[in-house]
């Protein structure tokens, strides 16, 4: 049994959200720079240059690259040999979020209740926590700051098995085409295929937090990722939606076993400001 104090989790969660909001990953920066070279639209190239410059300034001056510093999502992958001490793990994660957003000049965007008063909680808590237990004595923490311009453009559909590969392709392209300029393209498109209703959505969200250099290990799904990326870039939406061929930076697919009667597909859209950071305890 390995003991980990929850205060350590608080400190790490805080640092991860500060980093995610200030610093866009090298993988995204490289892809944006690379796509600026091939983007045929002059206005599209201007937009990509503006985004690159913005992200350089954010990292240099430690400022939020986007004013929508997001809803805080935390994926905890916990080794079952770990014993947390010193208080509630859930409260410790929320405390990390609270400290990052109040001390780091990040916007507080969470309302306590969705329908009636919609009163702001004032510290960006509570965050959304997803826990998975695995063998071992390590804890992996992935922090995603999820903006809602892109979250609002995400969709889920329960396809029938007979709709198959073509049905999945049609649905993913439809979601991105309907979103058009709204989610701040170029996008990272997370696709969850299989599982149950809620698992497909969870996989799609997890997919948006993968590095752009990562591809599905199954060559058939990797080919599907590439085909979808090409298809999305052929939609013409372009950077900021002003028209162009740079609409997707990457399509990530995560799959799970599913029911004989079902083919759930969830598409979670993430803007070019793909803000996530992770650490291992």
């Amino acid at each position, binding site marked *: 049994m390995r003991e980990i104090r929850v205060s350590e989790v608080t400190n790490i969660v805080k640092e991860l959200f500060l980093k995610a909001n200030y610093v866009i990953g090298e993988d995204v920066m490289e892809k944006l720079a690379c796509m600026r070279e091939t983007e045929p639209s002059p*206005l599209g190239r201007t937009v990509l240059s*503006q985004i690159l410059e913005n992200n350089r300034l954010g990292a240099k001056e430690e400022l939020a690259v986007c004013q929508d510093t997001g809803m805080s999502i935390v994926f905890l992958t916990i080794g079952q040999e770990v014993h947390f001490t010193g208080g509630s793990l859930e409260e410790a994660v929320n405390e990390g979020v609270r400290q990052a957003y109040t001390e780091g000049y*990040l*916007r507080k965007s969470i309302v306590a209740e969705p329908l009636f008063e919609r009163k702001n909680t004032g510290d960006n808590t509570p965050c959304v926590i997803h826990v998975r237990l695995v063998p071992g004595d390590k804890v992996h923490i992935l922090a995603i700051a999820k903006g809602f311009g892109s979250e609002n453009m995400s969709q889920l559909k329960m396809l029938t098995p007979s709709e198959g590969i073509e049905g999945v392709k049609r649905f993913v392209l439809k979601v991105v085409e309907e979103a058009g300029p709204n989610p701040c393209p170029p996008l990272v498109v997370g696709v969850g295929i299989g599982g149950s209703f809620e698992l497909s959505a969870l996989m799609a969200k997890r997919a948006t937090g993968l590095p752009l250099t990562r591809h599905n290990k199954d060559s058939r799904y990797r080919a599907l990722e590439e085909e979808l990326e090409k298809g999305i870039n052929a939609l013409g939406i372009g950077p900021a939606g002003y028209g162009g061929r740079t609409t997707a930076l990457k399509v990530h697919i995560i799959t799970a076993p599913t029911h004989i009667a079902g083919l759930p597909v969830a598409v979670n859209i993430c*803007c070019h400001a793909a803000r996530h950071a992770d650490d291992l305890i």
Partner: protein
Amino acid sequence: MKKIRLPLDEKTIHELKAGDEVLLTGTVYTARDAAHKRLVALIEKGEPLPIELSGQTIYYVGPAPAKPGYAIGSAGPTSSYRMDIYTPPLLKLGLKGMIGKGRLGPNTMKAMVECGAVYFGAVGGSAVLISKSIKKAEVVAYPDLGAEAIHRFEVEDLPAVVCVDADGRNLYNEGTKLYKQAAL
């Protein structure tokens, strides 16, 4: 790149065309969902608004808090379509410009043509860069709304693109059509 003064004058409004790259200098008021809801409730009751909107430009933004030494925190545009339900009555009161990102609804675009107004797109997610062009910021109404309060910004060379002009031409549709390729 055209340099444009805000508030907009009639001549400029009709000269600006979808796709024009502009640098905006002058005064803008910020408002998002919550402030729009209050403004339109006042209009419906026939009560005066806390700001004079006639001739003005609204920037759809909820800025991040300012770090010490900064005029404002990160301040990029939010999605404009959420304001569609509130915008036609504001246009009828004389609102002449909006700055945001993403599509507008058909009712907003129709009211823009009727009233003569321009919609500028700023690049979503370039919030640090845009904040550099905001020289002064103060809350002028609804301080209880926090980031969603109405601020008055003095901006200098804020980079934007005309996305919908006063004739109703729409860059999003035209640009997408131009670069769309055959389906896979």
